[in-house]
Structures are given as structure tokens and as C-alpha cells.
């Protein structure tokens, strides 16, 4: 571009060019001034806008400042409220019985309050350590606490459980544990905080209440409710594992007498003695319960052999049989036990208990005056069913008047003349034979039919005596009374009614009672016998020598006749001891003013022996068996002649 040197200008042209340039520059300057003015105006406007903006901003700043001031005031108030609230919270915490703790969910570091350390009787550091590794929780509690805390740290669940803590004193105490986890906005667990409250006293009261609800207050063994529960448990366990278990029902024989004789304190002591001795025999897994009164029950678990159960029963009998000293008296009891074993003896708890009960009653029935146990068997049920059938038959027999009376004569040994008869019940079978009295009398007694039967006998005996009496035959009829019948208050009334109905003097009727009718309550027996004597009835003691043979009561009772039991008479000529006893009985009876009847006389030698000792009367096969009433008048009209056979007759 060096070649492009400025052209030389002619002066006119130069002037023209310069003029044009000047014009352009002037125009440019004006344009620039115009632009500047425009820009100045724009600046002015911009400045105005800025001023307005500044004013708005100032206003906004003022408003914002006011807002901030108000917010700050609120914040200050909130802070003050929070501080007050915190102070109140601290006060509440101090006043409350809660001990506080928290776990850092990330580091698992545990912090706890002084109060908690005091509650646990441990240094703070140790509490934190033991809470951290959960070793402070006792036994089964530990795994549950661990599971619940882990769950609470993973979700927004609240831990609320009762746990057992090994406190510093070495004991274990119950606490209520509450805890909840705090999460950040992302759901991350930050810390778990909670409290322990000492609930040991409440738990102990609850446990005590539970114990009282399930245990017998006197003996501290299980009560019926717990026994029933344990029975259900045993049954369920057996259904699961084929385990065999036995239930024993145990009853004290004549416990009432212990209470009556030695007082309730002695009775209570005896019940505790029995409970403790049963406990000493059975295993921890077994259950011993008092069902009420003098009734106990035992559940024996895991039975392997029947012999084991019997051995347990024998041990219980052995230990419970030992007498205890109470109020300076020796107090003891006999016990009866019945055993039923699952599954052979019952499929349900009620069936097992019922069958054990049946077995117990069987044991008691057989051995009232000593301890015994009986193992349930299905034969027992069969026997019971048979007995039930027998009772029904007896009841029906009474209604249909199937029973009859036979009469065994009693002879005056000096005159060989009948001086009276003993009425003996007979129950004819369809084939003409008789059901022996020892086969149905016990059933009548057990079935509560004996009174009805006895009443029939009394009426029938009176009726027969009256028949003879009307024929001019004075044949007194002696009627046997069972102990049960003898204790009936209306017995004299029954006799009175029967005598009156038959228009029969009382001397034509006698009663024969055994020693055990009077031995239990001498006073009552005396009253009853006096009433009967007042009606004119003759009173005989039957089977004397076989029972208590207590001679001391004889003189206290209005007894006219003593009947020596056949077991002595049968041996008076062969056994010196029997002879001595029979001799003593005769002498004693005479000394008391009573006449003597020898029972079961079968030989002439026996009769001779009796005559020699002034025994007034005798009965037995030597003279006559029991006979139908039609045959008695003939015998009564003649003197007895000894037959040549001189031996027992059939019938």
C-alpha cells in the first residue's frame, strides 16, 4: 500500500474535499452530540429507574428488616420457651423414676444418665458397656431386646417391653424399656433414645398374685385351676410326643375326725405334712395339687413303667403315714389313692380324673382303716357297672317285694325250746336259689338303698311276729341293723309305726347291732338304744369279739343280749384261746347282767361247753338253719331233739 501515496490536491478541489470532510465531521459531531444527549437522557431515565429501584429496595429492605426483626423476636421467644421447656423437662426427668439412655446408631456408642446408673447399681461406664453389648439383660430377655432394638433402628417402631436386668447388687430386677429411633430426612437412623423404669415391685406383686391365683394358700402347692391347666399341658405333650403320664387322686381317710378330735390347726398341719411328703417323692416336672378339703392330686409325667407309679404310691403312703406331733398329740392319717394313666385309662383329662377318682374310692372302700392305692382298670369300671346294675335290681326288688325273710331260731340251751328268731333277708333267684346277702347288702349300702331295705325288713319282721302273736305264739323276732340304719334319727319312729300298725307289743321285736354301730359315738348310740328300749325292744350286740371288743362301753349302754361270734364258738372245743375268750365274754356279760347267745353252734360238744358255762342261748346249724316263716311254728311248739347226724345241714 506504499504505492498508494496521497494524491496532491488542486487547491479548489482540496478546498471542496476539506469542506466535505468538515461537513461530515460537523454532521458526525452533531450526530455524536445527539447520541450523547440521547444517551444522557437514557442515563437520566436509567438513573430515575435506579432511584426508584433503590427506593423500592430500601422499602423492601425495611420490610425485610421488620420481618427479620419479628422473626428474630419469635426465635428469641421460641428459644426462651425451649429453654423453659428443657428446664421443665429436666425437672420432670429428675422427678420421674426413669433412667435415660441412647445409642448412636452409627458407632453403637451408648450414653446413659446418672439416674440409670443408680437404678442399675453400677458405674456409668459399666452400664454403657453392658448396654452396648446387651450383657446387662438376663437370659431370654437378651435375644428379644436385641431383635426389638434392631427392628426399631430399621423402622419407626417403638420398643416397649419388660425385661430382666442383672443389676450391680447381684440380683435380677424387672424394668420396663421404652425406646424410639430418630431418623434424618433421608431416613438414616441417627440415634435410638429411650428410658428404663423400675417395675420390679409391680412384677413381683403380679407374680405373687399369679402364684396366689394358682396355688393353695395353706400348702403352697398347686390349686385346682393350676392342676387343670397342668393336666391339659400333659395331655397336649402326650399327643405330641406319645408321652405317658399318670394322674393320682389322693384322699385322706377320716380327715374330719382329725379336725374334730385335734382341732383345725392340727388338720391344717396334717395337710401340709401330706403335701410336703408328696412333694418329696415326685419329680420337679410333676405336679402336686390340693383340689380342696382333704383331696390332693398328682400328675406324674414321663412314665416308663407301671411299677414306677406303684413305687411312687408306696413311697407316698410310707411318708405320709408317719405321724406328726401337734399340740403334744400324735396325729396321723391313712390315705387312699387312685391312679389313672394316659392313654390307657382315659382319652381326656376329665375322663382320667374321673377314673382315678373311681380307683381312689375303690381303694378307700376296701381299706378304710389303712392306707391303700388302687390302679384303675377297666375291670373296675365293669365292677362299677355291675354294682350299678345290682343296685337297680335291688331297687326293683324292693319295689316288687321280691325279698323275703327267713328266720333262724335261737334256743334256750337249758330247755331246748325256741326263745326267739333272727330275721335274715333272702333274695330268691328265678331258679329257686338265693342271692347271698353278702353279695347284695354291700351294694344296697353303697347305693343308699339300705335304709329302704331295712325299713322293709322291720315292717316285714313286725308283720310276721304279729302273725305268730295272733296265733298265740310269742316268738320274738330279732332284726339286724346296719351301722348306717342305726344312725338314722327316725329309726325309733319306724319301729313305733311298724309295731302300731301290726298291733304288736315291743317285746316281740329285738334289734341286733354290731359294735361299730356304737363305737364311733357312744353318746348318740346310747340315746338311740334308749329310745328303742323305751318301745320295749330287746337290744343285742351281734358278732361280739370280732370288732373292737371294747367291754368298757357295754355297761354304759342299755344292752340285754350279747351274741358271741361264731368264729369263737366254732373253736371252743378245739382251740384253748378261743375257749378262753368265749369264756371271758360269757362271764363278763353275766357280770353286766346281760344274757349270752352263742352263734354258729354246730356240735353237741360246743353246746355242752356252753351249757357248762351257763350260756343262756344258742343258735346255729346244730339247732336249725334259717327257715321260711311257715316252718317256725312247728319248731316252736316242740322241744329240740338232737339229731343223730350232729353236723352242719345244708341251706
Amino acid at each position, binding site marked *: *500500500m506504499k504505492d498508494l*501515496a496521497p*494524491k496532491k490536491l488542486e487547491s479548489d478541489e482540496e478546498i471542496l*474535499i476539506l469542506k*466535505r*470532510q468538515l461537513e*461530515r465531521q460537523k454532521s458526525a*459531531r452533531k*450526530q*455524536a452530540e445527539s447520541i450523547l444527549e440521547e444517551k444522557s437522557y437514557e442515563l437520566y431515565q436509567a438513573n430515575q429507574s435506579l432511584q426508584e429501584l433503590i427506593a423500592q429496595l430500601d422499602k423492601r429492605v425495611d420490610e425485610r428488616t421488620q420481618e427479620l426483626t419479628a422473626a428474630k423476636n419469635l426465635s428469641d421467644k421460641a428459644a426462651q420457651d425451649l429453654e423453659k421447656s428443657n428446664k421443665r423437662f429436666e425437672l420432670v426427668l429428675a422427678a420421674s423414676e426413669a433412667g435415660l439412655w441412647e445409642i448412636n446408631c452409627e458407632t453403637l456408642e451408648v450414653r446413659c444418665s446418672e439416674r440409670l446408673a443408680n437404678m442399675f447399681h453400677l458405674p456409668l461406664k459399666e452400664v454403657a458397656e453392658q448396654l452396648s453389648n446387651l450383657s446387662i439383660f438376663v437370659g431370654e430377655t437378651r435375644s428379644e431386646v436385641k431383635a426389638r432394638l434392631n427392628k426399631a433402628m430399621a423402622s419407626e417402631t417403638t420398643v416397649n417391653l419388660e425385661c430382666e436386668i442383672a443389676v450391680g447388687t447381684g440380683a435380677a430386677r424387672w424394668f420396663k424399656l421404652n425406646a424410639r429411633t430418630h431418623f434424618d430426612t433421608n431416613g438414616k437412623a441417627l440415634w435410638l433414645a429411650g428410658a428404663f423404669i423400675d417395675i420390679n415391685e409391680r412384677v413381683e406383686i403380679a407374680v405373687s398374685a399369679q402364684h396366689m391365683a394358682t396355688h393353695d394358700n395353706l400348702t403352697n402347692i398347686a390349686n385346682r385351676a393350676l392342676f387343670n391347666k397342668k393336666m391339659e399341658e400333659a395331655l397336649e405333650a402326650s399327643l405330641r410326643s406319645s408321652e405317658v403320664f399318670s394322674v393320682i387322686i389322693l384322699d385322706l381317710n377320716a380327715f374330719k375326725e382329725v379336725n374334730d378330735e385335734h382341732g383345725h390347726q392340727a388338720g391344717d398341719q396334717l395337710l401340709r405334712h401330706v403335701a410336703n411328703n408328696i412333694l418329696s417323692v415326685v419329680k420337679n416336672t410333676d405336679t402336686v395339687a390340693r383340689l380342696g378339703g382333704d383331696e390332693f392330686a398328682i400328675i406324674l409325667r414321663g412314665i416308663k413303667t407301671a411299677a414306677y407309679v406303684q413305687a411312687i404310691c408306696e413311697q407316698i403312703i410310707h411318708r405320709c403315714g408317719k405321724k406328726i406331733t401337734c399340740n403334744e398329740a400324735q396325729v396321723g392319717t391313712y390315705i387312699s389313692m387312685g391312679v389313672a394313666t394316659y392313654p390307657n385309662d382315659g382319652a381326656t383329662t376329665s375322663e382320667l380324673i374321673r377314673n382315678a377318682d373311681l380307683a381312689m374310692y375303690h381303694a378307700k372302700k376296701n381299706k378304710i382303716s389303712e392306707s391303700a392305692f388302687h390302679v384303675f382298670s377297666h375291670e373296675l369300671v365293669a365292677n362299677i357297672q355291675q354294682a350299678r346294675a345290682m343296685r337297680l335290681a335291688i331297687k326293683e326288688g324292693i319295689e316288687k317285694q321280691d325279698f323275703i325273710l327267713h328266720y333262724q331260731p335261737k334256743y334256750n340251751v337249758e330247755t331246748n325250746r325256741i326263745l326267739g328268731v333272727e330275721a335274715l333277708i333272702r333274695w330268691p333267684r328265678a331258679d329257686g336259689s338265693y342271692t347271698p346277702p353278702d353279695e347284695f347288702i354291700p351294694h344296697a349300702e353303697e347305693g343308699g338303698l339300705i335304709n329302704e331295705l331295712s325299713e322293709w325288713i322291720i315292717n316285714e319282721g313286725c308283720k310276721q311276729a304279729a302273725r305268730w302273736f295272733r296265733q298265740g305264739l310269742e316268738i320274738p323276732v330279732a332284726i339286724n341293723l346296719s351301722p348306717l340304719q342305726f344312725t338314722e334319727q327316725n329309726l325309733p319312729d319306724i319301729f313305733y309305726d311298724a309295731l302300731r300298725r301290726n298291733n304288736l307289743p315291743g317285746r316281740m321285736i329285738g334289734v341286733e347291732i354290731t359294735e361299730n354301730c356304737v363305737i364311733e359315738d357312744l353318746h348318740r348310740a346310747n340315746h338311740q338304744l334308749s329310745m328303742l328300749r323305751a318301745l320295749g325292744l330287746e337290744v343285742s350286740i351281734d358278732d361280739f369279739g370280732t370288732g373292737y371288743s371294747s367291754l368298757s362301753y357295754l355297761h354304759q349302754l342299755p344292752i340285754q343280749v350279747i351274741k358271741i361270734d361264731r368264729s369263737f364258738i366254732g373253736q371252743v372245743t378245739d382251740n384253748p384261746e378261743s375257749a378262753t375268750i368265749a369264756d371271758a365274754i360269757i362271764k363278763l356279760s353275766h357280770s353286766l347282767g346281760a344274757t349270752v347267745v352263742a352263734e354258729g353252734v354246730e356240735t353237741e360238744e360246743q353246746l355242752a361247753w356252753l351249757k357248762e358255762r351257763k350260756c343262756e342261748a344258742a343258735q346255729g346249724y346244730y339247732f336249725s338253719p334259717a327257715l321260711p316263716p311257715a316252718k317256725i311254728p312247728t319248731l316252736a311248739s316242740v322241744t329240740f331233739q338232737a339229731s343223730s347226724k350232729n353236723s352242719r345241714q345244708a341251706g
Partner: protein
Amino acid sequence: MKGIIFCEFLEMAEEAFGIVVVDEMLETTELPSGGIYTSVGTYDHQELIAMVIRLSQITKTPLPDLLQTYGQNLFGKLMETLPQFIPQNQDCFEFIKAIDSYIHVEVEKLYPDAELPRLRCDEVDDNNLLLHYSSCRPFAKVAEGLLLGCADYFNNAFTLSVADSEQPSDHEISFQLLRTKKSA
């Protein structure tokens, strides 16, 4: 386009070719503004193009040379005229990289209606810079001249060449800048 560009162009033309040539150029070019420019005004860039083409015809100088020379001179003028936009104590590459990200940003604040070219930098390494120019106006040669002016300003701190990789045009072009020495 800002008036400063027109004013500097006329000043350069006058310096190089004299007042007569400039007058002829202005008198013989159809210019809506009438050839009257002030540095604070804004004018259609087509007028500049028309003037450059006319100047090239009058002076018989190749148009690219004219544009490049104009650009080279313009750099120094701009540095003098607008020092407030120039970052101080900068390395030449740092300066070039700052054109798009800083200088043009500041220019736009002053002249919101300015239509500025884009200058994108790819730093191959510390001493090798690829500069991509793009504009709605066909002033690639002016840009080249400006970069040469920049090299002069930084005492020949780098050499400039058109990058091989792309086909240059008046609107878009890439340059390779190789550092020759450290500059500040």
C-alpha cells in the same frame, strides 16, 4: 456495528491513502449514513463492507490485504481506546482465551445491541492454541489481522497460521497459535 469500527477504518484509510482517496470512497459509495460516523453510534456493517470494497477498487489493493491490515491496526487502537476492558498482566494465550469469556461479556454490558463474533479456544497444550472464529459478518480476514495485531502487542509472542483441519470462509475460520516465548 459499533461506530468505533467505522471511525477507525476511515482514520486508517486516511492515514494510508490520504484524505482525497477517502473522500472519493465516501463520495462514490452508496452509504445510508452518508459516510458520517461517530464512535458512539451504531451503523449497518454493510456500509463498512461497501466502503472496503470501494477502497479496494480505488486503491487497487486486494480486499483481503485491506481487511487484514485494517484488523492489525484496529487491535492497537482498541487496546488504546478501551483499556477498561483489557485484563492486565496477562499471558497472550490467557488474553485470547479471555476475549470470548470476559471482554465480549463486558462489551455486551456497555452495548447491549452489539453483535459480537464467537471465539472458541481449544488448548492443545500450553504452547498450542486452536482458535475458532465465527461471525454473522464476513470479517474472517479482519479477525486474522486483529490476531496479528495481538501478536505485535505481545511482542511477537506467538505465530499465527490458518488451521488445516477446516475449510475457511469469511464467516468461519480456525487459527493455530504457536507460542514462541513466554509473555505477560
